[in-house]
């Protein structure tokens, strides 16, 4: 059984109230940081911990913090990215609704480390009920002197605000989030300048995922070195994985990084295997935007080693035979899943969510969706398969923000690993267009 650092007390009755949370050791990190540590020491601990951004990109959090520009007399901001809307990812919602004080504690400690006196939690518009939970918790933190002026007599002031978005996926991109927070249309900005130089209101800003910030109290309490002992290599600590799809026990699991994927899927402690006794067909390991992998490649790397739940192991083999840990949205698909239909569904999402600012993404996402729709509904041609790859390639890397890549990768990967299914949709168009139709290896012989 792996250690639970974030979710240890998640099922304690009333843990969302200040008293109960405090009784279970809450806000210790704030006391420790504000009373005994300098901001730079907190940053140093986070650096030592090796914590990597939990929002998807996996950039080391401590390093991100140290890039923050600190000009004299200019306010700095910490913004928590709670705009979790990647299909398949639902870890932050659970963390915030069950343990609102953990996030607030993390925000206070992190803001102290960065020298921010105003911080924001930008929350996805659909999560209004979570917003209310957070607001209640923030009010409690103010009432108990953990927010506001002169926190715990240390002379450090912090105001924390929760801001709901309008429900756009693109506002999870950090610069689009900042635009939205400023009250503008949520279009990603051109980089450079990066938020660490000119972020919110053109001030130095750090944007971190909910889970990254929630890990900071643990790191401060236990020490960065202690945290770094968990995990494998450069993937340290624990990670929330939101497992969904055709699993016996879908849900949110806190795992120690380094857990074998096979154990995660099949062990009773975690997902408990594939439902209805069926076979696993494919896995999208880190939210809908990462490349899909067939069963053989998700359980073992191309070199035949066991695939582990770490940033490095999952990306072993690059995009040819690997994928990414991403945000931890683990989607398992059994043998009855039609990969073409699934790819079309993902593509439809990105088409809908593209902001429309830069041309490759605006036009390309719609184009891919239409071609996939055609293939799925039995009107495709063989050329369409290469067309998809070509369009995905035209988008990838040529857009302002990573949404272009997020739209292109799943399509390119699906064709890469499941080309035979796409071809079957052309050769057996009539059959494939039936509702629930799915390619089976024997079907080729028919």
């Amino acid at each position, binding site marked *: 059984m792996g250690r639970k650092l974030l979710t240890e007390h998640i099922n304690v009755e009333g843990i969302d109230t200040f008293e109960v949370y405090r009784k279970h050791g809450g806000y210790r990190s704030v006391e420790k940081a504000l009373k005994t540590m300098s901001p730079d020491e907190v940053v140093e601990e986070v650096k030592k911990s090796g914590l990597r951004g939990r929002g998807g990109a996996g950039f080391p959090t401590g390093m991100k913090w140290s890039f923050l520009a600190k000009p004299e007399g200019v306010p700095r901001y910490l913004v928590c990215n709670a705009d979790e809307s990647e299909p398949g990812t639902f870890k932050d919602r659970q963390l915030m609704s069950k343990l609102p004080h953990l996030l607030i504690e993390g925000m206070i400690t992190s803001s102290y480390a960065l020298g921010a006196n105003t911080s924001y939690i930008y929350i996805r518009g659909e999560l209004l009920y979570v917003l209310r939970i957070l607001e209640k918790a923030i009010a409690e933190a103010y009432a108990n002197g953990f927010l506001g002026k002169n926190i715990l007599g240390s002379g450090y002031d912090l105001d924390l605000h929760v801001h709901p978005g309008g429900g756009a996926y693109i506002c999870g991109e950090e610069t689009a989030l900042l635009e939205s927070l400023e009250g503008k249309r949520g279009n990603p900005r051109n980089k450079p300048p990066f938020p660490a130089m000119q972020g919110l209101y053109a001030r130095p800003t750090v944007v971190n995922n909910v889970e990254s910030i929630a890990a900071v109290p643990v790191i401060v309490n236990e020490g960065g070195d202690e945290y770094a002992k968990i995990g494998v290599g450069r993937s340290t600590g624990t990670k929330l994985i939101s497992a969904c799809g055709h699993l016996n026990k879908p849900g949110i699991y806190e795992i120690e990084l380094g857990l074998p994927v096979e154990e995660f899927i099949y062990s009773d402690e975690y997902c408990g295997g594939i439902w209805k006794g069926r076979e696993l067909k494919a896995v999208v390991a880190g939210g809908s935007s990462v490349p899909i992998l067939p069963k053989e490649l998700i359980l073992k790397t191309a070199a035949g080693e066991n695939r582990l739940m770490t940033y490095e192991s999952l990306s072993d083999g690059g995009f040819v035979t690997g994928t990414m840990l991403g945000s931890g949205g683990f989607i398992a698909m059994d043998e009855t899943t039609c990969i073409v239909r699934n790819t079309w569904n993902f593509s439809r999402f990105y*088409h809908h969510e593209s902001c*429309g*600012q*830069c*041309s490759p993404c*605006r036009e390309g996402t719609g184009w891919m969706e239409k071609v996939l729709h055609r293939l799925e509904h039995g009107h495709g041609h063989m050329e369409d398969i290469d067309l998809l790859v070509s369009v995905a390639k035209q988008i990838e*890397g*040529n857009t*302002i923000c990573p949404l272009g890549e997020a739209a292109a990768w799943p399509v390119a990967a699906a064709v890469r690993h499941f080309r035979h299914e796409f071809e079957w949709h052309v050769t057996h168009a009539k059959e494939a267009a039936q509702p629930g139709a799915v390619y089976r290896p024997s079907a080729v012989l028919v």
Partner: protein
Amino acid sequence: MAKITFDGVEVEVPDGTTILNAARQIGGSIVPPAMCYYTPLKGSGGKCRACLVRVAAGSAKDPRPMPKLVASCVTPVQDGMVVENTTSEQVLNVRKGIVEMLLINHPLDCPVCDQAGECDLQNFAFEHGVSTTRYQEERRTFEKIDIGPLIQLHMTRCILCYRCVYTANQITDNRVHGVLGRGDAAEIGTYIENIIDNDFSGNVIDVCPVGALTDKTFRFKSRVWFTKPVNAHRDCPKCSGNVVLWYKGKEVLRTTARKDQYGEVKEWICNECRFEKKETSDWTIEGPAHIDRSSVISANHYELPVLNQSVIADLPESTQRELAQNPPLKLGS
């Protein structure tokens, strides 16, 4: 100052200059095309991705290449930067892809579009695109909206460069139009239905790179290559009064602001100059406006070619004599 190498040509520019502007200082065919960037408009650029270039070396300090192609219009130069544009196969291929993306939902109604002949998208597609399409789906359409008696909006032609939004933001006090919707359903519109009505609203026509915003007073009157541009000015209390009048015969068909070689407006003009003063007597005529030789507008031999001496030397003697007696008139500025 920063020294950069652009397609093998070295140029020195002030710090903070964008790669595109550095390339424009070199000039010629190596300048990346720009569909959304517009020098007079702050914040514009980075959207169309037509100007993507490859940075082969980031700077003298850190000579690593940049991992992705960068938009040259918004990326500032670094000392020692090495940039590849026309010398990079990758850049040219990506540009082909960008043309394709911009055209898949474009109606290609050039035969009835007033912008044809002076359209950035037309030029861009002609220079960098391919002549076939792989797109077989239905093209995107929008519900027509009326934005007033002076400006015609054709949303289907729009490439969402945002120039008109920046223009309204930066040179008028009251912007009533903007981008509504998201993704490929994003459109220029007013919320709630409104007309664009202020003294400088007409400038959105000049900044539009395509035929999405055109002059209603010029609508369907003539193809631009049948009209002749003439520089003129008048004493205008609102603007500089420096314009180009487009004549067909003795009639002024339309008035536009003066543009530089990259199609960028030099001085904004007011709606009175643009839409109301359509008589020659309203204006002081300065002379023919310069039109680029490659432009279709100069196809009616408006500006005669200037032959250089080496070419003349190769001509038959009789022709040389004739040329000496009747030298070709060089018109324009």
